[in-house]
């Protein structure tokens, strides 16, 4: 089956919080958006779901970098996830989905794969 993607507008720039995360709802499930103004690119998007607890909390973690890699720490059990690859630094066998993200004027767009949702529809 061919996978198509779509760039969905999920929020405005004014919704972002510098050096921190927010959560948005997409057809692919909840996604955490991080805005790190000191980096280039400054926007990162990974799944909002913490794979260790199954709860939707990653956007509420503390951001930072470890050995230069941009990361967020899960607010529940404190594992670090790379904002670029989604890989868990403490347990590389665990990975969370990552999304491409871009700025379109004042709008923030996420690349969402829609094949599944179209089939479901």
């Amino acid at each position, binding site marked *: 089956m061919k996978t198509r993607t779509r760039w969905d507008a*999920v929020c405005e720039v004014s919704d972002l*919080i510098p050096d*921190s995360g927010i959560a*948005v709802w997409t057809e692919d499930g909840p996604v955490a958006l991080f805005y*790190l103004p000191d980096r280039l690119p400054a926007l990162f998007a990974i799944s909002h779901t913490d794979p260790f607890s199954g*709860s939707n909390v990653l956007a509420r*973690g*503390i951001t*930072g970098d470890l050995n230069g890699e941009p990361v967020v720490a899960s*607010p529940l059990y404190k594992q670090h996830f790379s904002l670029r690859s989604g890989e868990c630094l403490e347990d590389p066998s665990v990975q969370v989905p990552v999304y491409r993200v871009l700025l379109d004027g004042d709008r923030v767009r996420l690349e969402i794969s829609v094949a599944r949702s179209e089939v479901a529809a």
Partner: protein
Amino acid sequence: MSKKNLIVIGNGMVGHHFLEQFAASPAARDFEIRVFGEEKHLAYDRVHLSEYFTGSTHADLAMGTPDWYAESGIVLHLGEPVTGIDRDTRTVTTPEGSYTYDELVLATGSYPFVPPIEGREHPACFVYRTLEDLDAIRASAQGGETGVVVGGGLLGLEAANALKSLGLNAHVVEFAPRLMPVQLDDDGGAVLRQKIEELGVQVHTEKATTTIVEGEETRLRMNFSDDSHLDTDLIVFSAGIRPQDTLARQCGLDIGERGGIVVDNRCTTSDPHIHAIGECALWNGRIFGLVAPGYTMARTLAAALNNDEEAAFTGADMSTKLKLLGVDVGSIGDAHGQTPGARNIRYNDEQAGHYRRMVVSGDGKKLLGAIMVGDNHYYDTLLQYALNGIDLPDHAESLILPASQGGAPSLGPDALPDTASICSCHNVTKVDICGALDSGCTDLGGVKAETRASTGCGGCAALLKNVVDSELEKRGVEVNTDICEHFPYSRQELFHLVKVNGIRTFRGLIRQYGKGHGCDICKPAVGSILATCWNDHILATDHVPLQDTNDTFLANMQKNGTYSIVPRVPGGEITPDKLIVLGEVARDYNLYTKITGGQRVDLFGATLSQLPEIWEKLIAAGFETGHAYGKSLRTVKSCVGSTWCRYGVQDSVGMAIFLENRYKGLRSPHKIKMAVSGCTRECAEAQSKDIGVIATDKGWNLYVCGNGGMRPRHADLFATDLTDEELVRTIDRVLMFYVRTADRLQRTSVWMENLEGGLDYLKDVVLEDSLGIGAELEEHMEDIVGTYQCEWKTAVEDPEKRKRFREFVNAPEKTDPVQQWTTERNQRRPVAESS
């Protein structure tokens, strides 16, 4: 096979230590163990007996707990003296019954020697040995003005200190020409005398008491052989100890000429099934009147009963270091230079009251003994030279010269042999410490917990720290106090940088002093430091990204991503109306409700987007945030106090509310818990808190640095009978010093244990203002108290801050699909995980 019977007679420090050692050994499985104690109290720390007069209770001094005995399967017979031993039937008899033994341990200790002076039976004459003795002395001191101690030895001076702390004019009467004749020489004795007379204790040497008669103005008069006399209201005899060997004599065991139960190297008496340890035992013609040799005997016997062929008691080092009436006194090895050919090096500063003497071998290479009065800084190094036979350096005199005279720095830990004893109370050697480090301990606190080093008298604290640091370094564990990879500084150093340079944002700090973008270690730590220094709202834009989610959303995240809410209930006092509001809010939002251990109410299961509405309702009813999410003051627990309780002596609820309102919102390295009890029954459990306050009939006793949790720790008594103002000022200083100097996530107990000098140092800083920062600490606390704001209120009132509480910013109506609920005991709770 049925178990054999082991009976221990005597439940003092040594008897208890034996039980601790034996109960943990394999042989314990083969025995039913019984212990008989004459006193009704469980074994307690006699070394620190005088603290009983400054606020310590039996519980503070106790060596173990009834629970420990029960868990170890040891049957306790307290207040049940053994009256006879029958060696043929191997039976001991008490007023309650008789019990057979296979092995019998005598740990009967000693009794105070009272010289045969006419009149010594007067009711105002006492000895100084048990808690009952102290109770009697305290009762007799009421209404008296003067107290005399007969005996100027170590215990006598302790007793004099006790009389002084009861408010009496204290005198010491000594038969010998100087104080502490066993440990000190004439010059040392003279310096000690001068020092303690300056403290208001009068010393009379070369006095032999002939009679004690009724006094004219006072209760008693002591007449001396030189026809002089001394008027006093009570007398405490502390003229030495005698081994308590009565039972052993009665059953025909070998007894020394001057008393003492004769034992061999395995602490066994002339009967192979009877053993003796501690002050009742006579080894090689000697009685050991200190606790450390008693402990060594206890360990030897425990090993011997485990058939350890090598277990042997081979004598003990009688070196002592102590603070008597606040004066340092130390005595090591052959202090009097009795070794043939020994030579002396002396330093005597009468001006400062410092005296030190080294006894060195004839060839000048080894240290045989030493005496010091006035300053014990030299003790640890000298002891290591003497105990381990380390060659003295050239210019050995530098070891006792003051630092300003080119005195040598302390002996480096590397120079110590592996067998060097670091902590003599718990027999911890350098090898043991290395072993603890190799098995995973990574810091001083860990080594202390693992080996128990420095948890006895505490005299080895500085030496232990040096050894640990040096060994860590050797293992390539750089003793790295950097907080994380972004800052090459400890939390304390960061605190100074922020404060001194007036830095107000994380970004400013990391640009100037760090690298990279920060992480979940340094960001909250810096957030806490900034809050302590400047007390801005923690959700100010610059600070939001620094906070853990709990601080960001002012609630505690639970495992399913929802939050719990804990409003502040100062002192646990709440009006019915406010309680009803809590109930209504919980009902309306279907929140699981539970009473916390800190005397408040926790409401679970609120979603992120519900939080601001819930707070609006709570704020309207007069609630504030309880900071249950923060590294900050949690609660001040209280009992109902003198307002209602027939035992209460102060208004504990009022004080708890005052303290909670004063320190709420203070950001700290870790959470802080407090409690206030209205009387000594201690219903608020204040001694398990960081700050514990217990009412006395004169004011408040302050305890510090306790905690519950994984490693519970009793708080230490810090100051007694404080007024309200003194109490608050003291707490201000302790807390602010903690906030400024602790590492991140370091509770007060670990912080204090890691301070070089520990509790005494903390007392110096806070009570004596030894660093001259007392006023600054108080001022800083005033600032923080003055700029308190309820974080909820500020958050709810600001639309920008409220925006943060949207669960999904693009779908306000969407509820989190993973949150699944069920009902249990009539309340909603998350569905258990399927795994």
